[in-house]
């Protein structure tokens, strides 16, 4: 895209942001409210020499992007709740075999088919815990069309750098909302590529990590004779079905993210200085909170907003930083609330909403008034 101003929905911004970040391979299966991402990719990818394929289902879609990622491409798929549920087994495969992939989840009212066209935030825990086993992924969640575009570059950079699936959350509101957005010049951002092997084929062990705990990643067809398996494996990539190999591998897969958590954290702190009460809110739900915080301040309530943009790994130090009472406003019946409770020193109140609509500024303000000192 030429640099300049555009009027885009969150879905279009997600697709364009991905292309801007270097994504050249997309496989997907349509589902509201993410379908426009697939439509945009179908239109745009072949224009830039990329590939788009509509698969038979979400399981096939994620399998295809994992395969394609091994050829060296930056890859993406997009879906919503029911599709994410289907993808979870292969999210585990990508985590276990350390394949960079980006998955967009446009969250809608859930569980099950729920509210296909309306907003929800019920997949926050699933993003982290959806597949079986103990593993780490990275999850990001913007609150505007502009941030969706910009954050896509980070999503691909993280996926490539840490060789990990990145779950890029948006929500039904953001997906379909149109806003003015600025596309910067091509060279205005840094794009990270996965580490390449430094040793020639034969000498490079496929899963031998460097000091940063991340192994370099060869491409298919370069002679490295890659073997990747979802079975517990050793540095050669060969299955090794022992508690010792499991301990080594699973610990490293988790630590490679945990040890870099602070580099991955992105958080917006809005009027949190000297606050007595801070609302934790994410995605499009944070927009009403910002308005409510401004109103509350006018009424003499020292309120603030803490908006995790990085949802996983959870930016807990930001919670620990403030000795305040927290209100967690989320469009589910209590998910990130539990994380905040784990790290807060003061009171933590849950302000839930089951889905279909966001909090209104009045609802937030009403809650904040209880904290007037």
């Amino acid at each position, binding site marked *: 895209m030429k640099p300049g101003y555009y009027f885009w929905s969150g879905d279009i911004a997600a697709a364009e942001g991905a292309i801007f970040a270097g994504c050249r*391979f997309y*496989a997907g299966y349509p589902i509201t409210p993410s379908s426009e991402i697939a439509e945009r990719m179908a*239109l745009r990818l*072949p*224009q830039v*020499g990329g*590939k788009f*394929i509509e*698969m*038979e*289902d979400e*399981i*096939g*879609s994620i*399998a*295809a*992007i*994992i*395969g*394609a*990622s*091994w*050829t060296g*491409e930056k*890859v993406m798929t997009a879906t919503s709740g029911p599709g994410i549920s289907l993808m979870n*087994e*292969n999210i585990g*495969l990508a985590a276990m075999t350390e394949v960079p992939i980006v998955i967009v989840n446009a969250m809608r009212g859930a569980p099950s088919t729920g509210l296909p066209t309306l907003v929800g935030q019920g997949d926050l825990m699933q993003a982290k815990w959806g597949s079986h086993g103990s593993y780490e992924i990275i999850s990001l969640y913007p609150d505007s069309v502009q941030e969706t575009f910009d954050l896509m570059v980070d999503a691909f950079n993280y996926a490539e750098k840490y060789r990990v699936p990145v779950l890029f959350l948006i929500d039904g509101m953001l997906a379909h909302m149109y806003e003015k957005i600025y596309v910067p010049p091509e060279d205005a951002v840094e794009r990270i590529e996965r580490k390449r092997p430094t040793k020639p084929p034969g000498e490079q062990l496929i899963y031998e990590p460097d000091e940063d705990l991340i192994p370099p990643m060869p491409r*298919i*067809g*370069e*002679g*490295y*004779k*890659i*073997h*990747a*398996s*979802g*079975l517990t494996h050793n540095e050669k990539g*060969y*299955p090794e079905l022992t508690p010792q190999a499991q301990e080594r591998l699973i610990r490293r897969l988790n630590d490679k993210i945990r040890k870099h958590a602070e580099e991955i954290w992105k958080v917006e702190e809005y009027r949190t200085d000297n606050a007595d009460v801070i609302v934790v809110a994410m995605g499009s739900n944070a927009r009403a909170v910002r308005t409510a915080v401004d109103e509350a301040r006018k009424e003499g309530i020292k309120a603030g907003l803490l908006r995790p943009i990085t949802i996983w790994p959870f930016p807990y130090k930001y919670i620990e930083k403030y000795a305040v009472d927290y209100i967690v406003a989320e469009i589910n019946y209590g998910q990130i609330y539990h994380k905040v409770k784990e790290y807060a020193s003061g009171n933590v109140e849950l302000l839930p909403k089951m889905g279909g609509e966001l909090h209104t500024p009045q609802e937030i303000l009403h809650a904040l008034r209880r904290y007037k000192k």
Partner: protein
Amino acid sequence: MISAGKKSTMELLREEVESLLRIDRLPHVWCPGCGIGITLNAFLRALIRAKIDPNKTVVVSGIGCTGRAAGYVNMDSFHTTHGRAIPFAVGIKFARPELNVVVFSGDGDLFAIGGNHFVNAARRNHDILVIAVNNFTYGMTGGQHGPTTPTGAYTTTTPYGNPDRPFNIPHLAISLGAPYVARWTTYHLMQLQNSIYTALHRKGFRVIEVISQCPTVYGRRNEMKSPLEMMEYFRKFSVRKDDATFDEMELTYNGRIVVGVFRDVQGIPTYEERYNDIIRRAQK
């Protein structure tokens, strides 16, 4: 006469086959007398004869006894999730059409849990060779019945005989327009190897079904305790009929096995070729 120090053709071939195996991973997990090794051997020999660069060849497997094949080939190889070998391979092939992509997996993996992918990948005519080892059962999990278990067969989940009806795999593949469709048994060593060799030179979604013995969990429940008895069955009951009708291709319990090359047509554009046109149009 073979003089001392000079290697026989057999020895040379053996060395070549070994170079395509991850020798450091042996011994393999397969039972003595299992047909999967025979099939893998046929594939590797065909690859050698076809002079295809192993560095440009990718083997993708799902989960199962057959799925372990990817772990033994000394090429880029992927042991994926149960049923997902085909879409994984589709991603590789579509991203890099110059690679030679082979799916090597079991009947349950490809036709039960992965059936939807098989059907749709065949329909789209992706340029992939599928070697489907049909041992009539889920070997890895202990011999339950699957989508290819003949009606009447005894398995751990059909203790009174199988009420279910098996897939007619060649029929299925042909109905989807797959350009190369063949069936052999592990008894048909040379025919199988020749067929893989031919298929390696063809384009599009190529399917080779290999009827294979699983003496350990299937044969012994179905009057064929030893690998030899199963091979005897394959020898005695198979007939070659390239122009077999769909009914003739149907497999019955311990009945006749019609083998052959049922379809071999050329010139059907692959998905990858058709997408090249899309790129041209998009960039106009």
